[in-house]
């Protein structure tokens, strides 16, 4: 799936798939599916600089301010009908809607299903 034009604009070299050190099996929140639950293990500032209206550092700060911090419980609740985007997540006790592209720097260690 995913003929998502925005996602395809990211150069391959920028797609570093290195999970946070010491946390094996963590995945990007942007790749999670509804029903996935877990703990946020890392919130980075690295993806596609220049592609966003704000720099990655700013995006990271906004994510942190919305409660996407290391240690927070997270659950993906819903996704949009087109390109499965955006996603609605529950972070601790708050519900937040965000686009998958903005969720790429959030790494989640999923619970065993």
């Amino acid at each position, binding site marked *: 799936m995913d003929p998502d034009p*925005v996602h395809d604009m990211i150069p391959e070299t920028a797609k570093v798939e290195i999970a946070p050190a010491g946390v094996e099996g963590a995945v990007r929140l942007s790749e999670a599916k509804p029903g996935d639950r877990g703990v946020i293990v890392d*919130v980075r*500032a690295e993806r596609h600089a*220049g*592609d*966003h*209206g*704000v720099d990655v*550092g*700013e*995006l*990271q*700060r*906004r*994510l*942190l*301010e*919305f*409660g996407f*911090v*290391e*240690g927070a419980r997270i659950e993906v*609740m*819903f*996704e*949009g*009908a*087109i*390109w499965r*985007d*955006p996603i*609605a997540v529950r972070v*601790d*006790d*708050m*519900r*937040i*809607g*965000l*686009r998958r592209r*903005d969720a790429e720097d959030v790494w989640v260690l999923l619970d065993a299903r």
Partner: protein
Amino acid sequence: MSDAALPMARIALVGNPNSGKTALFNALTGSRQKVANYAGVTVERKEGQISAPSGRTISVLDLPGTYSLRARSPDEVVTRDAVMGKLAGEDPPDVLVCVADATNLRLVLRLILELKAVGRPMVLALNMYDIAQRQGLRIDLEGLSRDIGCPIVTTVATRKRGIEDLVAQVDGLIAAGTLRAANTWREPDAGQIRDAHREAQRILKANVRAPERPDTFTGKVDSVLLHPVAGLLILLTLLFVMFQAVFTWSKAVGDLMSDGFAGLGAFISAHLPAGLLTSFLTDGVISGVGSVLVFLPQILVLFFFIILLEDFGYMARAAFLMDRIMGGAGLHGRAFIPLLSSFACAIPGIMATRVIDNKRDRLTTIMVAPLMTCSARIPVYTLIISAFIPNRPVLGVLNLPGLVMFGLYAAGILSALGVSFITRRVFWRGAVEPFLMELPAYKLPDPVNVARSLFLRGKIFLTRAGTIIFPIMILVWFLSSFPGAPAGATDPAINYSLAGRIGHFIQPALGPIGFNWQMTVALIPGFAAREVAVAALGTVYAIGAADAAPGALAATLQHHWSIATGLSFLAWYVFAPQCASTFGVVKRETNSWFWPGVMLVYMTSLAYLAAFIVYQVARASGLG
């Protein structure tokens, strides 16, 4: 102590969005509030007054909601600067009142830590405390107050509970003359935000016990309303109902009002001698005021739905559902409601763009809103279609006029999406703002607050739009009436007026799109409001009461215009910047004449181009 001995004090309400801040503001100030814009920006400034039992008058400023002082939008800049007392034209607040949703404390605790650094005396209002109690949420108020270092008052704004306590607490702080500490706030980096979260988490753990009966209602409702298929269907149904309401409920009242104004005009014409004064009163003042007021029912019905859905917590869901569809055209999910409103009239649509916090997203939405087919275009479309489009079936079930009408609507929608797409790709390239939005817990709207917000919207429309639409209507009347026809003139008076001269003067420029001088003359009064062009065409072709007998006008147009000209006129009307009121509102909302100017240029260019292509193609196909 006499009242005069106590100088007026100032407080500012600050808090997360959806914390019930506005409800608390309403509960505090009642009807004693004023709405304006902050100097130089388009952020709404809401101020009210309280009379404290001590006799002190306290002015309350309701600041835009925010999650942090790191100001990311113009609204949040106002909040930050006002909190720090650095906002130009505003006196610094003596006391800050931080409003928090008692059931959702995590993020606001981090904001409180930031606010503490500013160093002003502060009171925390734990709002929606009844819901917290119902959920069995246990908050150790004393411990929390100690940890955050400021007094706490529990409130239920919608029931006016805790309001007196809050006023007494604030008044006490002011009376005590609590000294300000130094402002040590610095823009936090990622590490500091993390630290603040840890601190907030610690405070939360120490003083708040998780609810015994957590809110499961929101989750259940969301599993329907946010469902990829069911959610979209429900949204579309809601929109359909909203549209019906706007067109049927408000149309009845609007028609009544138009009739009333027409009757008033007729009464004046009948009882005053014909002349300049009568013309000024009937064609200038009454149609001017009338053209403002007939929009009011539509606007109130529309805003009634918008406010209701906003207070219920649904608007964030609608933005979520539509985000990807709007996003494809470079628009924000929140642009959906304003564009929808523009089908009724671009004015409430443009006013509704205030829900979009990013400036560029908001501007793009404002710029494309007038391309949506508003209800004022319908009389013009109907006239031209009845004159030039033969009523014959297409594919058995559809008929050609209906299909053309649908095509005109589709052209409006597609061009709006196209213009925003091009704007975002060419002019504001790469600037795709992150889309992060809280989906608040659902709450039953409070009737008093809905009524108050609705009243406020109506008042804002009348003062803001009214003060600009009315003078423009007078100007258009002046242009169409001066100078008057010379004695013994045979042509309609408008031909001799300034409008007539302007029409004749610009006609050569509009020749290539097939417009004759009668059409260009009719465009001038049509600039006041689109539907006026119908009456104006009646005037230039010297058909009395063209409104009452559209058939006669259609027959005349058939006789005078080629089919190519008729089609070209339709194409022109899809895009043409034809309504002065819209420019007035765009000027108000963007606080500059630059954006209305850009709008005028781009819409005129599009209209000319579209009409040119339609006219030339039609002529080449033998319809000239």
